[in-house]
């Protein structure tokens, strides 16, 4: 394939601006999928993605397009997620491309992730092609959207295609722009092989499947590849490209191509996303720069509901981490929950998605502890420690100072809601930095916010205070000193490590109050009265009491029919199984999550 006929591109957009729908239309117009095979959001092939209407993982597909210039082109479309948690995935995809289509919703204009993703594309030297979508909406104002693109991002947009991905309007214009505006790759096909791994997953039959972008050189079946980060070598057994529905074997890949390699790789630890693949017999001299390692922002403990499934959980996490390098995990133990893992995530949505994937794809029942950020504590001894798990937070007496992570947050909102948002940010201990008008009635509010105030439910609160109009993006700013305390929870007088969390001292009392109330709601009555207490450093600051169970069913046991009794007994035992026995108290899994939902 002549490189000048290849176009490698991504589509970037704020969430819900129509990225996956445009991808579907492009797939249709390039005849990549028979129409009868067409399902909405074809690229979103995880159940969770379709249900939530979001794209989580980057995905790639090769398309063939017959352009107006009479030539046939190969398009490699790499889909990207739009949510703030997955910026990392976006940047991974972008490195494999020469250009990006930037979708802007004609009625919403530029939103927080529009900017964040565009900046990522520009940082990666990509040609950005703006497209104005949803022109069919009654509230569409394409001119205003174009103006915003020109004024805020600073790229020409007045002649940007104005389309409706949903109705299929003007999609052809987008395809022509891909041909004319996005540069062809310029690799050296005769140089030593240099290919970037941008994704991978484990296939039961073929082993690890590497998705890669060949920058220089070429590769064919039978070649021995070397993965430069680990030095591991494998003989390739299948090479090809990603069709809309299946992998299509081709035997070789050349400079500029996007495709896959299977080399009977069994150990998922050998392949790292961001690593460079080269030819073992004719290696390149240095690896591609690869990816910046992303640091997880949010941690939580994940435990198997059934302790015997610890090994299964570990296997599942190992497989997930293969195509989600942003996930991290370390074994940990909890007095309450036994053996499990402390897992790090990019954000709360990322955490939810991983939990859901573990439960659905790996059929695991999980108990998850409340999410927490990492704290840096200086001890009176002068030693500095980083706290990943609230349980390990040192005694107040040993702490000389503590710091918590803060973020630079930008909130884009119609100006009507500025008051509401300021109130929310103040409540979340935010520091106002500035406010800029994007146009006459939309503003960009800039706040510094403690990360631990936004990991729980900030996004939901923001949505509800702005009728869904505000959008939000943040980046780590660093650590700032803070007055933090560790809140312990005691059931029947016994501390439950898995329920501890760290909170700003001003908020401790209110949180403790809500927490004990929530636990009381979530823990069923026991045979004994159970006090639920919250304490800071041994001092009880809130208490509720779960009353003892009064009666269960005293049914007539008739005519020697003891089956009903047996069924009740089985039900009791089944119920007990879903509980965690903490001392004399049986605690349902939901109780561990109740800490998450204190603001309901």
């Amino acid at each position, binding site marked *: 394939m002549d490189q000048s006929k290849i176009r490698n591109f991504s589509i970037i957009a704020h969430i819900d601006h129509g990225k996956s729908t445009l991808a579907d239309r492009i797939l249709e117009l390039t005849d990549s999928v028979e129409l009868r095979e067409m399902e909405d959001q074809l690229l979103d092939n995880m159940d969770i993605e379709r249900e939530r209407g979001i794209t989580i993982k980057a995905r790639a597909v090769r398309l063939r397009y017959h352009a107006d210039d009479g030539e046939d082109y190969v398009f490699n479309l790499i889909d990207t997620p739009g949510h703030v948690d997955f910026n990392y995935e976006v940047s991974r995809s972008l490195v494999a491309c020469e250009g990006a289509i930037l979708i802007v919703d004609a009625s919403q204009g530029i939103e927080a992730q529009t900017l964040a993703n565009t900046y990522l594309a520009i940082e990666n030297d990509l040609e950005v092609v703006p497209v104005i979508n949803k022109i069919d909406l009654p509230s569409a104002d394409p001119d205003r959207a174009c103006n915003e693109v020109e004024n805020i991002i600073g790229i020409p947009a007045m002649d940007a295609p104005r389309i409706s991905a949903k109705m299929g309007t003007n999609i052809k214009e987008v395809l022509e722009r891909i041909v004319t505006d996005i540069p062809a790759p310029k690799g050296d096909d005769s140089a030593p092989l240099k290919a970037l791994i941008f994704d991978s997953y484990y296939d039961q039959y073929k082993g690890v499947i590497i998705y890669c972008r060949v920058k220089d050189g070429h590769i064919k079946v039978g070649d021995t590849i070397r993965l430069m980060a680990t030095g591991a070598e494998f003989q390739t057994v299948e090479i090809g490209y990603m069709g809309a529905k299946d992998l299509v074997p081709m035997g070789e890949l050349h400079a500029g191509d996007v495709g896959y390699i299977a080399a009977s790789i069994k150990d998922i630890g050998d392949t790292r996303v961001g690593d460079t693949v080269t030819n073992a017999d004719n290696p390149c001299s240095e690896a591609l720069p690869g990816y910046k390692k992303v640091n997880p922002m949010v941690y939580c403990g994940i435990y198997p509901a059934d302790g015997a499934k610890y090994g299964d959980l570990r296997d599942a996490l190992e497989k997930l981490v293969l195509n989600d390098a942003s996930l991290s995990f370390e074994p940990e133990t909890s007095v309450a929950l036994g053996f499990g893992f402390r897992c790090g995530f990019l954000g709360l949505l990322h955490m939810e998605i991983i939990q859901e994937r573990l439960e659905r794809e790996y059929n695991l029942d999980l108990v998850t502890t409340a999410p927490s950020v990492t704290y840096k504590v200086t001890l009176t001894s002068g030693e500095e420690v980083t706290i990943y798990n609230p349980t390990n937070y040192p005694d107040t007496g040993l702490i000389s100072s503590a710091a918590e992570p803060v973020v630079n947050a930008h909130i884009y909102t119609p100006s009507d809601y500025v008051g509401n948002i300021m109130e929310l940010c103040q409540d979340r201990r935010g520091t106002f930095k500035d406010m800029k008008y994007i146009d006459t009635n939309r503003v960009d509010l800039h706040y510094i916010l403690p990360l631990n105030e936004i990991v729980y439910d900030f996004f939901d609160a923001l949505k509800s205070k702005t009728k869904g109009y505000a959008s939000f993006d943040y980046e780590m700013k660093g650590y700032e000193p803070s007055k933090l305390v560790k809140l312990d929870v005691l059931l029947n007088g016994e501390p439950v490590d898995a329920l501890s969390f760290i909170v700003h001292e001003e908020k401790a009392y209110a949180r403790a109050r809500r927490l004990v109330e929530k636990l009381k709601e979530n823990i069923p009555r026991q045979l004994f009265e159970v006090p639920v207490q919250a304490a800071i450093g041994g001092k009880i600051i809130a208490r509720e009491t779960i009353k003892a169970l009064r009666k269960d069913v*005293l049914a*007539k046991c008739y005519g020697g029919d*003891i089956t009903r009794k047996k069924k009740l007994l089985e039900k009791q035992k089944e119920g007990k199984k879903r509980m965690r026995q903490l001392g004399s108290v049986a605690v349902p899994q939901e109780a561990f999550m109740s800490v998450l939902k204190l603001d309901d």
Partner: protein
Amino acid sequence: MTGLYIHVPFCARKCPYCDFYSLRFSRSAVDGFTEAAVRNIQSFKGRNIAADTVYFGGGTPSLLSCEQVSAILDAVRDCFELSDAEITLEANPCTADFDKLCGYRRAGVNRLSFGVQSADDSELLKLGRLHNSERAQRAVEDAVKAGFENISCDLMLGTPGQTRQSLKNSVDTLTRLPIQHISAYMLRIEQGTPYDNEKIRNDIVDDELVSQMYLDTVEKLGASGFEQYEISNFAKAGFESRHNMKYWTGEDYIGIGPSAHSLFGARRYFCPSDLESFLSEPVQQSVTEDDDPDRLEEYVMLGLRLTKGISLQRLTELGVSDLSGFDKMTRLLEKAGLCVAQGDSVRLTPQGFLVSNAVIAELISSL
């Protein structure tokens, strides 16, 4: 020794809270039932099974004529080695007049169990019962006149509209009658019954009050000489139901009739709830429920329903080698006032009976 249970699946009118197997009464169906009962009893002939209790349950067994009861009992005497037997018949106060009671007595019935349920007429009306309190008291008096010296009455707790005071009145009325046994059950809304609706659920007594009612009843019956011997059963000394005791102590019993359950030959089985097959098949095909009952679990589950409780010695005999978890749980439960451990025995208190499902599940899990 074995007990015999005969399920008579007919009622003149079905009570709206009941989900036991019972059909509309008709003369011809009861005739057919009697013949089939005799046939099924005869299938045990020649096996020299010794029996000492017979129990006619239902349904409404008092819809059987004296001759029908007599025919069934003749078959029992013919096919089982019956000695010194307690022979109970459940009777509806409305369908048992003096003559009929005399006939039952002559046929060999020596114990009656009346479905009195309440001494409050408005409560009886809500329960859909055919009798009023006065009719029930007269039935008991007639039974005494007919020569019965062992009479039981059923009492329900937590029925729609019941109060602590009305229940106290019902208990007073019952304890003043010349009876020896009282069964006190809590009303339970069974799925699919006419009572399974929002209105009734709102009208019945809440958990807290019905628990108090139960404790009141236990205390009051005890004070009147009706000692509790099982979760729901109370008797004057020596008048505990020998038949029902077999259920709690793991003795054998054979059930005859649709929906009747059996424990016989170390196997639990039941006859399908299907009158048609009972009438048409020479001997109704039974269905195995459990051909290897867990003796330990059953011992704990059933034994703890009795006020005498279970024996640690027996647990050891049934294969428990380590009682430390059980002891620990027992101590916790004892501290909460739910059980009493004394020497070799562990028994539930009335408070413990109220939460017996949970307590039993805990104790079994601790073994």
